[in-house]
């Protein structure tokens, strides 16, 4: 038998090539996961994603029901439809997880993110930054003679667009919260 010349990453027809007949299209989904607010619960969720090779685009977590010790984790993830289903099933079977909602498929939802952007500059650039901030309804929450910190809320796309515009105007630092999302109410 000759020495095998195996190409790196050659997993075609492999036992790990798990999705031969499924759709290969990558989708982005926003999941809302209601969990018991107990020690290690976030590590469990993150460990599931890293251990099984799932993607996390953004993740936010905070307690939403103090008396009931419930936290809400909002995860934006990407994957094939079959991977998305796996993620939901894997989350759903965890002991501290009460509910998993896929906001992307369960009707319409509202997604918002908050970002802080520090923009440094003087002269025309500074004026332009302030003008654009106004258009985007961003607020200056801190200012010096040579810098602003803007606060902006909106969809991730809106935050992206604002950050892109600020870049040539002296953007030096960005902090983003990640997405918080809720399904919209249905008109009764």
């Amino acid at each position, binding site marked *: *038998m000759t020495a095998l010349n195996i190409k790196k990453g050659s*997993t075609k027809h492999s036992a790990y090539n798990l999705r*031969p007949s499924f759709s290969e299209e990558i989708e982005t989904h926003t999941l809302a996961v209601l969990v*018991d607010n107990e020690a290690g619960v976030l590590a469990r969720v993150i460990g599931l994603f890293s251990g099984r090779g799932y993607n996390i685009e953004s993740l936010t977590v905070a307690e939403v029901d103090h008396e009931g010790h419930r936290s809400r984790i909002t995860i934006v993830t990407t994957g094939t439809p*079959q991977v998305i*289903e796996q993620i939901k099933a894997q989350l759903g*079977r965890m002991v501290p997880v009460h509910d998993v909602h896929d906001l992307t498929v369960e009707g319409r939802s509202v997604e918002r993110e908050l970002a802080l952007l520090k923009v440094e500059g003087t002269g025309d650039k500074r004026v332009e930054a302030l003008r654009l901030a106004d258009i985007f309804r961003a607020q200056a929450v801190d200012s010096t003679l040579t810098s602003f910190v803007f606060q902006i809320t909106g969809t991730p796309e809106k935050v992206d667009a604002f950050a892109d515009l600020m870049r040539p105007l002296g953007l030096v630092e960005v902090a983003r919260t990640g997405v918080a999302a809720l399904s919209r109410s249905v008109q009764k």
Partner: protein
Amino acid sequence: MTKAMTGAKMVVQALRDQGVEVVFGYPGGAVLPIYDEIFQQNDIRHILVRHEQGAVHAAEGYARATGKPGVVLVTSGPGATNAVTGITDALMDSIPLIVLTGQVPTFMIGSDGFQEADTVGITRPCTKHNWLVKDTHSLSATIHEAFHVATNGRPGPVLVDIPKDVQFASAEYQPKARAKTDRYQPKVKGDMDMITGLVEAIETAERPVFYTGGGVINSGPAASQLLRELVEATGIPITSTLMGLGAYPASGRNWLGMLGMHGLYEANLAMHGCDLMINVGARFDDRITGRLDAFSPRSRKAHIDVDPSSINKVVQTEFPIIGDVAHVLEDVLKVWKARGRKVNRDAIQRWWAQIEDWKKTDCLSFKPSPKTIKPQHALARLEALTKGRDRYICTEVGQHQMWAAQYLGFEDPNRWMTSGGLGTMGYGFPASIGVQIAHPDALVINVAGEASWLMNMQEMGTAVQYRLPVKQFIMNNERLGMVRQWQELLHGERYSHSWSEALPDFVKLAEAFGAKGIQCSDPADLDDAIEEMLAYDGPVIFDCLVEKHENCFPMIPSGEPHNKMLLGEASTQDAIKEGGAVLV
């Protein structure tokens, strides 16, 4: 009113309330208060192992042979980390375990104290759930919840980490009835529309096959009974994974034998050629499916599983049924009977004719040798001489494991203990100890390879101390047989580190521990030697010197589908192609 007690006493009381009879463990600094409580009572028996990995495998053996959860008690730090392999093994094979670990006192956590390890961090991905108990008030309720989680839904190992100050402090004991179990309530009843859909498919299927797994065993004896009734009534052929052997009897007329990488020719071809595959409590593991895009290409598939994440994980199914096997099979039978007990008799008869034709290949035939003991022959003789006895079989991992699955027949569930998912060498010997503890009068045999067996050989001390007559049937080829086989098929016969040059004298080793040793190398002496092993009332190491370069067939080379099986030496040249070579 319940009374206040120390955390250590609570642990013992909670185990008692849960009906625990046996704990497998090893003491150490961080669990001394619990060991002190164990000393002062007689309801719960403690089995002292020689290594924490052995404790976990013994508890796994106990759990699999009884259907009850196994309980492990080990200390902090190295005690917990030594248990990790066993815990992972139990997770992969869905074995219910409650592992109690000691921890440094709460005020020292995070200080890199002596024998401190982040046990809940380390075991988070290898347990079904785990808890660090920081307050004695919540200790008993946590232990009760741990039993609930381990044994409900898809069973698995759980771990409760108990700091030493929590063991010393006192609080009020919460009885089992008051424990919180509402947050984990997996669905056990299957969807009736989907079940009706499956029954309709059964009624018309021309080439149906049952593909069953460990889920049937885990669901309990009722599941096996219902499966047998359904199989007999419909006349549908049945095959099983390694984990599911015994759910349907090997002597049953519809039995095709095990399927998968080293499964039987007829079983794998039935899977490949079927038009309706009914997966009952199995999970389309890669050892079973082989190459996925060519896996059973013309079949409709049903999948019964209690774990929703098993559904459509690997293979997409037309009839996904989430529920406990026994509950679902009961409903399937009910619906099938109510609809008039219909099957496509003529077509199934033709299907059986095809299967009988495949059976003529006689894929397990081998050439016995008058000079050396063939491993297949050794197992065929072991089967012949122990058949019909109250027998439990454990195995280690490798060629001998596959031969045991092929050549031994299992008539009942809970009689076969083997590391399926994780493939843990060193599993079988401690598992056999756990089985023998559960069934003191039964014949417990661990079919082993010498390399696997040496991985946990220290447990000879346990076997001798508790006078456990476990029979260690070691098929000694002085090789890591399965590694050697893959090197032969895949790596140009370059046998890199797959043999042992300094094996012990197993007879003397047995004697050194105060057990009996038997060696056999001549096929003519084999039956007498096996009889001598069976007749001896105590632990035996049976050193069976077998053919050194025997390969295990049939074999589906990795990266190939079910219909590309290797049946013997002649067909092995260039069997594994480039794509398959990267697979394990």
